[in-house]
């Protein structure tokens, strides 16, 4: 592998990691409250509000029904408003965050819903406020499932960055398309693919490890 190729690859990897970290954080900041609201506003839940639940559920489904590439293109004008450009990594962060947030919201919803109702009732019977139940019971109890869900979400954001790369967002996706595909540089294509595999494997490993660590701490037997 030439220095030139290595340089390209490292730069692209850095861009991908940066894109995933920033858009993942934003998506999580939007998706976590959304996922929780999707659970607690259900009928007979702690902050019952079926109308809000319905509206939010519909929005989530609507965004999720668009193919990623279309979503990214549609949201580019928004990128111009928010970050002032429709090109490059900065521009990609806006559609990536918005595209991933509803997906995260559903994953978080599923994880939170797994918490047994009896635990919520126990907290209610002690006089806990809904907000206390969310922060002190639902999130900690669902933590191992939340970590596993976040892992899936991060990996799917990597996938999204590759698609965004096709329209000039930078990162490994860009590298693969512009050099590997358009310039017939098979070596670059292979290097990119291997880098992506290693990246995804590492994230999955960290996610599994963290989730297992939490479970082990809670369920170890002396």
């Amino acid at each position, binding site marked *: 592998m030439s220095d030139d190729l290595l340089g390209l690859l490292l730069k692209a990897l850095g861009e991908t990691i940066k894109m995933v970290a920033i858009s993942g954080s934003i998506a999580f900041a939007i998706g976590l409250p959304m996922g929780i609201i999707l659970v607690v506003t259900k009928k007979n839940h702690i902050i019952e509000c079926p109308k809000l639940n319905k509206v939010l559920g519909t929005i989530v489904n609507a965004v999720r029904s668009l193919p990623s590439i279309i979503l990214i293109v549609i949201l580019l004008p928004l990128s111009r408003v928010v970050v002032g450009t429709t090109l490059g990594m900065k521009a990609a962060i806006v559609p990536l965050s918005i595209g991933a947030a509803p997906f995260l919201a559903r994953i978080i919803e599923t994880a939170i819903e797994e918490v047994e109702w009896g*635990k919520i*009732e126990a907290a209610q019977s*002690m*006089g806990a406020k809904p907000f206390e139940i969310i922060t002190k*019971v639902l999130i900690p109890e669902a933590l191992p499932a939340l970590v596993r869900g976040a892992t899936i979400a991060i990996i799917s954001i990597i996938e999204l960055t590759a698609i965004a790369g096709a329209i000039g967002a930078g990162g490994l996706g860009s590298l693969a398309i512009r050099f590997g595909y358009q310039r017939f540089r098979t070596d670059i294509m292979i290097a990119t693919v291997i880098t992506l595999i290693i990246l995804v494997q590492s994230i999955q490993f960290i996610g599994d490890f963290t989730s297992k660590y939490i479970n082990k701490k809670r369920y*170890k037997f002396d």
Partner: protein
Amino acid sequence: MITIKNLTKSFKTAEGESEVLKNINLKIEKGDIFGIIGFSGAGKSTMIRCLNRLEEPTSGNIIIGDKDITALNKRELREVRKKIGIIFQQFNLFDSMTVFENVAFSLKVAGYPKEKIKSRVHEILDLVELTDKIQAYPAQLSGGQKQRVGIARALANEPDVLLSDEATSALDPQTTYSILELLKNINNKLKITIVLITHELDVVKYICNNMAVIEHGEIVESGTTDSVFLNPKSDTAKKFVSILNNFSSQGTYSGGDGI
């Protein structure tokens, strides 16, 4: 202490309204251990859950101390609940928290002074004899130990009433005996009013001073435990007593050697 007046509860089902509790009237004295017994589906669980409104009554009044529980708004209800402890059949402990944190949770929610939480948790765990498990997680405890944590958590904020929703039904006879012994002890020491529901007559016989029998959502009989045992009037009570008599020759915890 607790007065239940004309309590009814109905659920909407596909076939229309189903009345689970019909015109329940009961009076429970302060410091009493009061048992409500019934077969599965009689409505006993719904009834005890109405007392802290985990289940919303359809009509009627429930007066605990000087407060009509049914008239409270959400905020007032939360305040009152801090003084009504409840323990569950499935314990409902928080798996993410240690024994200490489980008990401290109820104190934090109640706004207990921070500097006193630690000493209060130790004190109450001492009462339920679980100080050696203070840093354990619920998954590391036996059923009986879990229920002890449940009791500690329910009692931490010094409630006036303790509700027990089939608290011993998931436990083996020996453990049931030790938990009942603990409840008796607590009632004695703290003078707390205990209301329990169960489908095991043994439980009632062992710790309740007064009892009521519930059948198809109605209280069919009530009085002192001794009087109901000696002279059961309702079908349910007769059935329970005859079951107990058949079994007692084999010896359960009445007269057993304890643990």
